[in-house]
């Protein structure tokens, strides 16, 4: 072919490459964690501060929210709004943390930020009494309903063995950026509830996970769409009676916040925060085997900040 055609094809390929590299979804899907040795850490852990301040430090250490949220994107933030309880019970994510995350998203240029969860208790009371609704709205986010089946769409999950089909919330399909914000607690059935388990709130039929192999379903829950960023509220950690907790529950004041794009690594780290080994939780092993992330923290670039 002649020179002009050659140049055109080079330009075309270059544009395609630039588009793919620039598209946030592609960046998010690029491997389960950043390759070790890059400028940014794979996992950031901060201790002994207020949640909002710890998040500011953690996200800065990870390269800033702009690394995850591009200008003009639609962001969906999925905290734990499972229960109609006050924030002090730490059964739901700290509302101030959710607000700070939303603020960072807008600062990074997000066009729209949604916050939702498929609550276990009555949804309106959960959204309100956890105070996540009030705080998120202060930062300009929109609280999205998730209480009816019409908000969910059926999708197939090709790589799954048990969770082969899911009814997933429309925002998970629609949003450019997916931020997962669990609160760390013990769990009667699964042992621990953290980043992987928090994804149970994006599907309509939670009962399917419980009835068809809880560990396997928790592990495969991230196969359809991995969160682009995980932030764990490990400030006041429920140690017994979780995940809802009762007045007899005991807590550990760990005053921690963890941040990672690797959902398996962050759960491994949180297992240790709870005083256990990651291998004690079957679903962490299964998720690691399914190539959703790296379980072995030794091989990762971990940044620790103590205030």
């Amino acid at each position, binding site marked *: 072919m002649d020179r002009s055609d050659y140049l055109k094809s080079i330009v075309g390929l270059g544009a395609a490459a630039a588009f793919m590299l620039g598209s946030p979804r592609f960046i998010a899907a690029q491997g389960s964690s950043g390759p070790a040795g890059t400028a940014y850490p794979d996992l950031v852990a901060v201790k002994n501060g207020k949640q909002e301040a710890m998040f500011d430090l953690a996200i800065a250490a990870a390269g800033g929210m702009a690394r995850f949220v591009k200008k003009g994107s639609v962001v969906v933030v999925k905290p734990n709004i499972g229960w109609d309880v006050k924030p002090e019970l730490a059964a739901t994510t700290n509302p101030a943390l959710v607000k700070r995350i939303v603020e960072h998203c807008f600062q990074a240029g997000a066009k729209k930020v949604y916050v939702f969860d498929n609550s276990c208790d*009555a949804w309106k009371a959960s959204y309100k009494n956890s105070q996540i609704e009030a705080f998120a709205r202060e930062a300009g986010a929109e609280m999205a309903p998730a209480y*009816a089946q019409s908000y969910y769409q059926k999708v197939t999950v090709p790589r799954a063995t048990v969770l082969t089909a899911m009814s997933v919330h429309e925002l998970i399909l629609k949003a450019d950026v997916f931020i997962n914000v669990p609160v760390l607690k013990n769990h009667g059935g699964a042992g621990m509830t953290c980043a992987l388990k928090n994804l149970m709130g994006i599907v309509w039929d939670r009962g399917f996970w419980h*009835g*068809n192999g809880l560990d396997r379903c928790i592990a495969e829950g991230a196969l359809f769409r991995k969160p682009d960023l995980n932030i764990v509220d490990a400030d006041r950690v429920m140690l*017994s009676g979780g995940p*809802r907790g*009762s*007045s007899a529950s005991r807590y550990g004041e760990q005053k921690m916040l963890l941040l990672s794009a690797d959902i398996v690594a962050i759960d491994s780290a949180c297992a240790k925060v709870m005083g*256990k080994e990651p291998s004690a939780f079957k679903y962490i092993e299964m998720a690691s085997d399914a190539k959703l992330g790296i379980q072995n923290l030794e091989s990762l670039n971990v940044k620790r900040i103590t205030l």
Partner: protein
Amino acid sequence: MKFTGTRALRLVLPLMAAIFLFAFCVAIALPAAVFPEAVPFTALFTSIQLFPAMEKAVLSGILSAGIIALALTALTLAFGRFYCSLLCPLGTCQDGAAALFKHRRRRFQAGRGPVRVLAFVLCVGGMVFGMPMVATLLEPYTVFARGFSRSFGDLALVACNALESLGLPLPVFSLDFDASVLIAAVFPFIAILFASMLRSRFFCGTLCPAGTILGALNVLALVRVRLDAGACTSCGVCERVCRTGCIDAKKKHLDPWGCVQCLDCIVVCPHGALRYGTVRRGAARVCSRSSLKTGRLEFLKTSAAALAAAAGVASLRFLPERAGMEPRSRSASARAMAVPPGAMSVERYAARCTACATCVRACPPGVLRLSLLEFGITRPLVPWLDYGRAFCQYECTACGEVCPSGAILKLEKPVKKLTAIGKSELVLAKCIVVEKKTACGACAEHCPSGAVRMVRDSGYDLPIPKLVISTCIGCGACETICPSKPEKAIVVSGISVHEIADKPATYDDEIPELSDEFPF
């Protein structure tokens, strides 16, 4: 024309009645599942209903209800039976129904004394003896709330769902469709409206128990509609507009028991013979021999009716089915049905509930639903908690807040959280962990009182559920969420007398020492 004050009232009253009706409809028909903010608003409307307030005061001893009942009585004694034309939603609906047939010539509705008393004694007597079925059919707030919300209310929600599915940003409502319950729930409302089309406000002057009380007070009222026989020419114009058919133009007589102070007659009278005011000294009264005879006959008929009704109600005490009042279950597993916290006991609750269904609408998780005859034939449509659909929310007291009759008393939240309305039963063999050998724990996950928790047992590889029954409050969360199919491994049965449960017990979980440093 004279009486401009009355004319002004006559214009303002229907408008106020319409506004009040609209607010009422919104308050009682909006499901709290989507609008829990409406609950205090609903409670406001239910608190001012005369018959339920009297029931709450007399049968349950609630002072606030007594004050409201006395206030309504006092206002009626002062200003007449205006409640019926201004505040009663069923009354305003009947006016609407009658207006559809405006061309029908209205006339005096005669001979209602005996029927009035019969209906009233049956209603009140039934309530006193724990058989609310007559009130379920005739009490105006009950009939309106249940009938409206399950007919027009539900239709509006269906329309809303349809529009939402077409893409409009509207909420989604979950609806409960049970044909037999729906028909039974709506029938009295529709029948009363239909009757009003044939004979305007037939119900108000004949069957309404609140109307009978208010009517009796109206007779004694200081300020009410009065007909001056001296100025009356029996032209009959008033009789044709009278909403309750309480004016006999030929006899120049207005029956104060039936008059709802709508003031329509005053405005149309060409001779100024009608007025809304106090008794005037020296006003001419019709008192002929024939009317005395009619009066005596009416009195005899009325007394006979009263005695017959009283005897009938008293005899119902001895119905065999009154013994052993355990409500039969709706489900195949024959479990006892649970009733809301605040009911105190199934017997007390079923004896007072007239099935207005306000609690059903005000229940945010939507666990309450109407029964049919499971609580006995004398207690139709009484609501129960269906744990197959949803569970009672730990932090919620909505049903007690809105119940107008005191069937569900309002409990303080800390008390409500310890009130056991049922107890769970666990069948380990049906549990997912035992059957499928995979982890579950959904029941323990949801239990707000720590009554079911997951424990390590040497017989099983994975944690299994264990019950600490003394702390169980029977909220049904475990049953609702249990994923076992076809039968749940854990189910909740209602208990006949509610009791106070123990506070949640500490968990036996081994909690490892957590380090102060980063553990990784």
